[in-house]
């Protein structure tokens, strides 16, 4: 059985070709500084692997130590409803020290979102449930910190900060 208990499906946010042979799944938290440090590394991996890679981000907000993480995750889901998921994802990580409500509204404005609709969606309990829906699958898949990465369904146990990460991905089958 692969480590990743819930396989990637169309309910995930997927960046890259569905036919890509290398699948990288990150369980992450927008307020976590380690996830912030992983963000440019993932960008570089995406640049280097191009169409061979599909990247999936699943929310794993650690709400007690990162009180703004859940709202940020909900904001990304709200942006997704207006077709701007990855734009908001990038905006949140690039500004992860400012994730209060007014900052998030500013980011939505900057992305040209319909703000009235965005505010309603951010307050929607169902969207909050969606933002939390990956948490249990993460726990059961062995997520024990943020970020945790899975490569083609298997948990990556080595140091994702090391250059070996991209070499490992290149050889993934």
């Amino acid at each position, binding site marked *: 059985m692969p480590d990743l208990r819930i396989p990637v499906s169309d309910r995930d946010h997927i960046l890259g070709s569905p036919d890509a042979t290398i699948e990288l799944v990150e369980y992450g938290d927008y307020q*976590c*500084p*380690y996830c912030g440090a992983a963000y440019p590394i993932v960008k570089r991996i995406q640049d280097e692997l191009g169409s061979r890679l599909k990247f999936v981000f699943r929310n794993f907000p*650690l*709400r*007690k*130590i990162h009180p703004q993480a859940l709202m940020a995750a909900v904001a990304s889901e709200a942006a997704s409803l207006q077709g701007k998921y990855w734009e908001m994802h990038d905006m949140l990580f690039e500004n992860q020290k400012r994730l209060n409500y007014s900052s998030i509204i500013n980011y939505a404005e900057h992305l040209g979102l319909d703000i009235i609709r965005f505010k309603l969606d951010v307050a929607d309990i169902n969207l909050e449930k969606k933002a939390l829906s990956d*948490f*249990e699958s993460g*726990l*059961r*898949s*062995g*997520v*024990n*910190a*943020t970020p945790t990465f899975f490569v083609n369904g298997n948990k990556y146990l080595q140091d994702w900060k090391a250059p070996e990460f991209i070499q490992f991905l290149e050889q993934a089958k």
Partner: protein
Amino acid sequence: MLQPGMIAPDFTLSASLGESFTLSQNRGKRLVLAFYPADWSPVCSDQMTFYNEMLDYFTDQRATLVGISVDGKWCHAAFSNDRKLDFPLLADFEPKGAVSRTYEVYDEEAGESKRALYVIDENGIIRWSYLSPVDVNPGAAGILQALDDMNNVTQ
């Protein structure tokens, strides 16, 4: 380590959130005992901080979590307060490591508990145990699986 099927040895230890914790006074509850080396490991990788984020998932399975290390009760209180932990930490402090020794998870050389997990059922029987490498946060996958397996047997 003590093996599944054995009776969990009884103990009483002082607790960070109350006066004391006695295993045998918790019959009827499922217990998760998380032995760990020391308070104050780095926050983002800390096992206790991580478990604190997911207590609801243990509660949903009718399980109560306690952390156990050889740190004293004042150290536990400070650590628990700093990390805002919502579950008790037990002080295996005097005589040092006695409960950890009984559960066969004491590291004599380090003078600390090993990183180890026990899941105990409503009747005080050990149902699952796991020894983790000391530098690896074992997460919760094994605990949740053990609790699931107990549901399946009970039904």
